[in-house]
């Protein structure tokens, strides 16, 4: 068996977490034009998010626009510093690291992006693109690097002769293979794939899914797989983390979350996902009309306006468990009435 440069054998011993995210908060500020320091309004993209990713796991973060999953991905990739909370990579806390040290730690985390067209430098050959991480990390001699790239090309289903071709000579699916080869070449501890299939045709998606799963199995890779497509997630993920407006509302292993969702939002997401052969009207069981941005700043639970179980307690009391409780493999939901639990009948509303 051929090993890429830099891999260490026997890393799957105890299955410790590669990534531990503990209660991170991330805010983005808007400044009024013309003023220098005054912060006009704030968006709290992450309101206290915790999760962990174990070695060899595929953890999928799902949620709709505005939930904070991209901000979370960038924070774990060490491209954004959280305003509070901690992120640990392989046991190393990242809070107090300098930019330089952060960058070296970041070399163990690689990304695959959604758009295979803009994520490859059009002026470099495919071989040079895949080789870049090795050059930056100063790994091996030039001959070693070329060898690695040639092997990487076959690993992703391309040919060694593709080394000297340019991205524009490839289709979208093939470019995504190049992006995958680039992400894998230095055998990173974590690969963050941010919607890697969304820009591809359906018939190509299945090829790329098979490739990602095959590589993961052969090399015991660890993925953070971000997607809005629950069908793909249900096939691929070991663990699922559901986000809503900057919070983790549910997390657990994929089969559990999909077969028995605990949080009403997860239930809504799962039932809204179109499925071949599923009768339309079955979906409507608990759909609440018009999920539009409401004024939810005053509610303890942000899903209050759209939840069919919403009760007085949801208005005033933040649902448990707290953020750090999600640092677990158990199936949990942040809700006063998770799963089959129903609120008691109230006189009003």
């Amino acid at each position, binding site marked *: 068996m051929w090993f890429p440069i830099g891999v260490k054998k026997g890393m799957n011993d105890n299955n410790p977490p590669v990534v531990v995210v503990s209660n991170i908060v991330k805010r983005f500020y808007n400044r009024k034009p013309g003023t220098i320091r005054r912060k006009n309004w704030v968006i709290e993209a992450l309101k206290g998010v915790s999760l962990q990713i174990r070695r060899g796991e595929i953890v999928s973060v799902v949620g709709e626009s505005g939930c904070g999953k991209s901000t979370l991905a960038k924070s774990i990739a060490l491209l954004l510093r959280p305003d509070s909370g901690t992120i640990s990579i392989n046991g190393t806390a990242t809070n107090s690291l300098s930019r330089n040290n952060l960058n070296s730690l970041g070399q163990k985390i690689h990304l695959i992006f959604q758009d295979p067209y803009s994520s490859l430098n059009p002026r470099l050959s495919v071989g040079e693109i895949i080789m870049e991480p090795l050059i930056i990390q100063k790994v091996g001699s030039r001959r070693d690097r070329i060898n690695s790239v040639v092997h990487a090309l076959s690993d992703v289903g391309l040919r060694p002769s593709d080394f000297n071709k340019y991205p524009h000579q490839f289709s979208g699916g093939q470019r995504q293979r190049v992006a995958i080869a680039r992400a894998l070449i230095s055998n990173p501890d974590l690969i963050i794939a941010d919607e890697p299939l969304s820009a591809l*045709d359906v018939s190509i998606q299945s090829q790329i899914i098979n490739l990602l799963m095959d590589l993961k199995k052969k090399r015991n890779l660890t993925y953070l797989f971000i997607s809005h497509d629950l069908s793909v997630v249900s096939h691929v993920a070991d663990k699922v983390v559901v986000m809503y407006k900057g919070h983790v509302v549910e997390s657990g292993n994929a089969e559990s979350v999909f077969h028995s969702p605990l949080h009403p939002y997860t239930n809504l997401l799962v039932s809204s996902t179109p499925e071949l052969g599923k009768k339309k009207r079955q979906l409507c069981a608990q759909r609440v009309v*018009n999920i539009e941005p409401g004024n939810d700043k005053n509610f303890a639970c942000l899903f209050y306006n759209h939840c069919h179980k919403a009760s007085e307690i949801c208005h005033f009391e933040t649902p448990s468990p707290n953020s750090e409780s999600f640092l677990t493999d158990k199936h949990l939901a942040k809700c006063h009435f998770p799963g089959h639990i129903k609120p008691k009948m109230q006189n009003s509303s």
Partner: protein
Amino acid sequence: MDETPLLSIKNLRIAFPIQSADGYSDLFVVNDVSLNLGAGEILAVVGESGSGKTTMALATLGLIPSPGIIKSGKILFRGLDLLTLSKETTRHYRGNRISIIFQDPTTALNPTLTVGDQISEAYILHNQNSHIKSKELVIDLLVKVGINDPKRIFDSYPHQLSGGLRQRAVIAMALICKPELLIADEPTTSLDTTIQAQILDLLSDLQEQFGMSILFISHNLAVVSQFAHKVAVMYAGKIMEILPTKDIITKSIHPYTKGLLGLLPSIETRGQILPTLPGSLSEDDILSLGCPFSNRCPSVKEICHVECPSLSSPSTQHQFACHAVGQ
């Protein structure tokens, strides 16, 4: 349902010029397509990129981007060939008798006009002396498309609304003149999952209320299977199969349709290697005189590379174009 179809596309061929060794040649993006859509029917056209589904839909309203050109064929709307109409008459049909909604509601809306003004504009253009009535009608329609506070939305600008609200406004704009045919080109693809489900429900309800026909373009078989009466599967500018949606899982017969159905991931396919369609669509496939799917087809025969199969049994509910599978 009526015997005479509302919309009948006959042998439509649309080409774009591409550079070849000796000057320019034609790349047929829509290659001999024939389809029928009855009154009150929802027909979904499903295909991946390069299938020609959007170009075919745009041709109905004379909206093919240049340098595309319609080489031959007819598009009959209530028996009248839309391709022979003058620009003036086409404008009369557009937005009035045949409406279209696109994938991205943000670019479909004018950012400098309020939502109410834009929807009224569509009404006023097609109905004379209607300034006075239009506001009332628009607000009525905004309620019908599921907007709870129509007066506020009437006076809002597109940038003040979420994606879902914008798409509802676009739908209102398309329906204000009560068209007989609505063309929906991937109307939910850019929306969040939960909003997508709401919009599909809305379109379904509106179809029952207004009785219009819908030509629904999508790349997503699952979405379409819950929504449409009939599905037409397109590949590289050709129709591969047409059948009722309820039969799609059990009775589909074309290797491409079956391939598409087989490769969908779900919780049931966990741990398994997904079936795939090897390779991808290339320009050579589209230019070939044989079946464009032959290079990827698991059931391919010699004749498939040479002669393109035509669509079988035009008078039945289930049609397909394939040499390899039985009639």
